[in-house]
């Protein structure tokens, strides 16, 4: 949590997860389709095929004097150091897991990397909400299989989403935003 020169509270949320898992798609959907959120400009640092090279960024607010600075990371493995930079000072993580069975390893690797970067803070001082994305895939992994894969218990809020259609995205965002605010109020 930080404040700007007008005394407004800023909370930083980061969409994390494996390459092509739907982080940017989910953020773009929030940006384009959710009317109740006030948004600044959408900034994307991406290559010519629209794959994120560094990060996407949008400031959002649900009204009032609290702002969410929402970032996504570049998911490809070689962008590890960029992810570390984007994670600096994050208040909450929205982990976007990919339901395709051929992304099993990518999901675990990405989650392990996140745990390595944030250490004990993850899930304690820095709340996490998990999106199981691409639930429309016919051959998707089961929910239990994915939770098992990531080693998640019942203490982490899980949302099944289809980022392309926006299914579940708003609720997942509300959940992480709520968790982050509550963490600040009752720390």
């Amino acid at each position, binding site marked *: 949590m*930080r*404040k*700007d*020169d*007008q*005394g*407004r*509270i*800023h909370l*930083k949320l980061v969409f994390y997860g494996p390459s092509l898992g739907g982080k940017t798609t989910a953020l773009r959907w929030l940006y384009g389709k*959710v009317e*109740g*959120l006030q948004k*600044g*400009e959408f*900034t994307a*640092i991406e290559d010519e095929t629209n794959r994120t090279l*560094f*990060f996407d*960024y949008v*400031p959002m*607010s*649900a*009204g*009032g*004097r*609290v702002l969410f*600075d929402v*970032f996504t990371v570049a998911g490809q493995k070689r962008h590890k*150091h*960029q992810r*570390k*930079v*984007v994670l*600096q*000072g*994050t208040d909450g993580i929205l982990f976007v897991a990919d339901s395709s069975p051929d992304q099993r390893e990518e999901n675990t690797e990405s989650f392990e990397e996140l745990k390595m970067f944030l250490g004990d803070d993850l899930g304690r001082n820095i709340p996490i909400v998990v999106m199981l994305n691409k639930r429309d895939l016919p051959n998707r992994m089961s929910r239990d299989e994915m939770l098992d894969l990531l080693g998640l218990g019942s203490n982490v809020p899980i949302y099944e989403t289809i980022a392309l259609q926006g299914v579940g995205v*708003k609720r997942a965002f*509300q959940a992480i*935003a*709520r968790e982050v*605010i*509550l963490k*600040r*109020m009752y720390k």
Partner: protein
Amino acid sequence: MSEPKVFDKILTEIIRQDKGVKKCILVDKTGLTIANVSKLSAFVVDTDSIGAIASAVFCASEEQGKNLQIGELEIVTSEFSGGKIFASACGKGVLCVVSEAEVNIGMIRLVMKKQGVQLAEELDKFLAVEPMPGKDELDEEDLKSALEELERV
């Protein structure tokens, strides 16, 4: 917490040093824009996203320096056909200056280094969490109302 106006004062000082300087932005290392000052003639841009990129670019270079073990990063200069961007280390933040292409680079570097010291001190005070009476309740009100708004989205 220090008076926010102090940032504007220092940034204005920097902008006055060279006629080619168009914009000064102070960001922290998480990408948050803390203060900014522009010349009246400067183009209107979304400062928040400029600040977010400035901070990330600087931190990425810093990370690169760590990997290569070549010490502390002092200044990043980006030269464009129509202008220049300077970003310098400033304690817990990054000082970013946008200028025209034709500019006294030496002067800008000098001023950034000099004012950077003072900015870093002010930034430390600004970021230090000093509980003030009544302050926490105020924040809690803000957070509470955000929570309610969030449910209505």
